[in-house]
């Protein structure tokens, strides 16, 4: 446990974050873009927890931030999927290139 320094966990979360960034840049399908955003949020969670555990072991604030991020990510995913399904009804496609106009 103590053999792994904090920097290794930060390297892991950096890698995961930039994997999410790559997915967000290359994908043009809304659901896969949402999946990339989830990966990025998870890497931020790992950061919060690792900082809390290694640098401030007597406090719990990083844990609380992670719990709140998980909750907001759930709400965000639900709203995003509702919007995607609504968009599919009106455009019959969930490609971001096809959704260039908002309502009409």
């Amino acid at each position: 446990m103590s053999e792994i320094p904090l920097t290794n966990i930060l390297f892991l979360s950096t890698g995961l974050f930039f994997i999410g960034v790559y997915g967000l840049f290359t994908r043009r399908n809304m659901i896969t873009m949402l999946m990339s955003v989830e990966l990025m949020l998870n890497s931020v969670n790992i950061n919060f927890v690792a900082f809390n555990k290694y640098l401030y072991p007597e406090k719990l604030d990083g844990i609380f931030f992670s719990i709140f991020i998980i909750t907001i990510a759930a709400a965000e995913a639900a709203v995003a999927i509702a919007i995607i399904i609504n968009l599919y009804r009106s455009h019959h496609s969930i490609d971001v290139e096809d959704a260039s106009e908002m309502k009409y």
Partner: protein
Amino acid sequence: MSAASIIFYIIAAFILATGVLAVTTRKIFRASIWLLFSLIGIAALYFWMQLEFLAAVQIIVYVGGIVVLIIFSIFLTIKSGEEMPKPVLTRSIFAALAVLFGTGFVVRLISLYNFKPTSTTVFNLNVNQIGMQMLDTKNFGYLLPFELISMLLLAAMIGCIVIAMKSKDKDATTFQNSIQ
């Protein structure tokens, strides 16, 4: 090298490999399953850090909630057996360049910074402690964000229903007229 560090490297390689597969595979259903494995790997990382409560929350919310929601929406919107079109070559090249540059920048920053722990007490996560601080109004309690987030969840729930609801006004009136 002890068993704990070997387990850490295995978990890290698992998370990164499944994450890369989740953003590069061209079948969307497989992408969601790779995302599922990546999230399970992150829960395993929390278990490795001895944060059992957070690992349980991760499995319940992400694996049990969000990924299932994503899979349902895939089945509702896309022909999941078909392959997605390849990304444009220039776009993927520039995305890869940006990602490589960003990764190198952040990794260099992290490795140059000297992290020093502020105290030597052993981190010990107690669910009892989390509950007490979560619902505390003083001593840096988190009661106000807790209440705000409950309002946010309610608003998101109602908003989802309103957005995804079919507008049946026209159909309903014609149906009533036909009855009369």
